[in-house]
């Protein structure tokens, strides 16, 4: 093989890795179609899209940089409160509010990253959990600002670009949330396929080697942690804009645990895991939960055990992959 051939193969292989797969086109077409196919379910679908963005933000940390977090709701909740307070006091323009909430949560992420990035996985779990608990208690205590246990209401939500009303309109809300999700997904996809994104994978895969090839591990991790926090803040702001009240449940432990669960169910490190996981989680919750609430917990627990044992990386996706591979082998045999 000549050098030119090698180069051509190399270039083609890298291009193939970052190119949009047909599965991705189908996926997003299906997402867009959901607007028309399930008009009665737009409220649920909006919830799914917001959780998807939240889970995506955690995937940036866990799936690409290997940072585990049990307190990611800290940034989600902070973004939501900032969004509500900013809208009440300044402007209800939804995109401005999203931007402010994202920047604020990103800054909180930047500051707290200095605590999180020290130590091992276990330390990180404890520190992130601690940060979220502290944030929860601050929100609870500062009831003059946040409404405390009663929550924060009366947040104005203007039409998007002044022409597309979303307040109390489930369909428009859903379209709005989907657009934000898609744009931020697109940006995230670009980032994880950038040199910066690859350096995160290197740090996750082997921090010792990463620093031995000249990567400043800490700075890169701080950057992605702040970005993940900003994404979570935007997700929180979206929920604030599409529900009547911002409450302490935005920031509680249950939310941090749920988003981690959704991500693990959908699988980490390929960006779609958070979306697939939160869709499965919320749809299952709705339909199984309708039959019997206890059963819901049973099945979620069961799914978690199965996935943790057999499909840790890619969640349900790797189960599908395994079945597909097995079928392919069967076919080849016959």
């Amino acid at each position, binding site marked *: 093989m000549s050098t030119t051939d090698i*180069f051509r193969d*190399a270039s083609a292989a*890298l291009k193939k890795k970052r190119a949009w797969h047909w599965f991705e086109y189908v996926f997003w077409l299906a997402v867009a179609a959901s607007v028309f196919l399930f008009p009665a379910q737009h409220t649920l679908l909006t919830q799914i899209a917001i959780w998807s963005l939240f889970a995506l933000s955690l995937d940036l940390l866990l799936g690409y940089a290997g940072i585990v977090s049990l307190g990611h709701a800290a940034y989600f909740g902070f973004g939501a409160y900032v969004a509500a307070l900013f809208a009440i006091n300044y402007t209800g323009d939804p995109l401005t509010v999203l931007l402010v909430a994202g920047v604020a949560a990103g800054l909180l992420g930047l500051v707290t990253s200095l605590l999180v990035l020290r130590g091992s996985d276990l330390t990180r779990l404890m520190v992130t959990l601690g940060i979220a608990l502290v944030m929860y208690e601050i929100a609870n205590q500062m009831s003059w600002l946040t409404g405390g246990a009663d929550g924060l209401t009366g947040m104005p939500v203007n039409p998007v670009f002044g022409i597309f009303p979303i307040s109390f309109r489930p369909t428009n809300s859903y379209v709005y949330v989907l657009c934000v999700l898609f744009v931020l997904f697109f940006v995230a996809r670009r980032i994880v396929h950038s040199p910066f994104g690859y350096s995160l994978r*290197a740090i996750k895969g082997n921090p010792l080697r990463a*620093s031995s090839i000249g990567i400043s591990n800490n700075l890169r991790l701080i950057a992605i942690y702040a970005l993940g926090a900003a994404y979570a803040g935007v997700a929180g702001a979206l929920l604030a804009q599409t529900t009547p009240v911002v409450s302490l449940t935005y920031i509680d432990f249950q939310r941090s645990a749920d988003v981690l669960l959704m991500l693990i169910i959908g699988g980490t490190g390929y960006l779609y895991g958070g979306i697939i996981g939160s869709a499965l989680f919320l749809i299952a919750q709705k339909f199984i939960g309708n039959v019997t609430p206890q059963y819901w917990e049973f099945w979620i627990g069961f799914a978690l055990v199965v996935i943790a044992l057999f499909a840790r990386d890619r969640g349900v996706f790797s189960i599908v992959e395994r079945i597909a591979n097995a079928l392919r082998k069967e076919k080849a045999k016959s």
Partner: protein
Amino acid sequence: MNALETVDLEKRFGGIVPTNGVNLQVREGARHALIGPNGAGKTTLINLLTGVLKPSKGTVKLGGSDITNLKPHQRVARGITRTFQINQLFADLSPLESIALVIGEREKRGTHWWSTFGGDETIVREAASLAAQFGLADALNERTSSLPYGKQRQLEIALAIAGKPRVLLLDEPAAGVPEAERHEILETVAALPKDVTVLLIEHDMDIVFGFADRISVLVDGKLLVEGDPKEIQNDPRVRAVYLGEGADD
């Protein structure tokens, strides 16, 4: 001119002194070997040179300038890279991606978050030709973790070279490589670019004497003797350490 130099370098862990006043001088362009029995302090010395450990006393100089207080990644930027005795690779990336990553970091592209990885033709070209040079042409796009051990060993060295170092530290490059694949690694080591100064840390005397033009012997954290291969071979103190005490394996 010394490419790499230590001055009265000392490292203490409590009562143990694995590096005890080491004055090592590696000349520009040298093929320098550092040998010594198990427990002589070779690994500690490498960690001091690369910045993984901070010395208790003394300085490390690279090309004449003091790098004692620089972090590992900053030392890489100054031109010192290393390989590891036990492979330290990016298991989930392909050899091509790993090498391209190193080149990108060398060219200060590592913080670019909006351009595409592999979109820069010159980097891919260099990565591909480097991979070919290290016998990885037919494994470019495999997952690194699925490569045979010998190939992984090649990649280990390729990653260090991709950083275009002035000084390269090779930590037992042939460690664990099966006899049949050994000559490939040795050829690779022999074919390293001449303008790179190499400090080889090695246990295997065949490799050392086949490669080095200068040898330092480290015993109990101190440099026992330094000289050319012939002098070292005939030095009674070295013989005592290696043959008399049977410390070598």
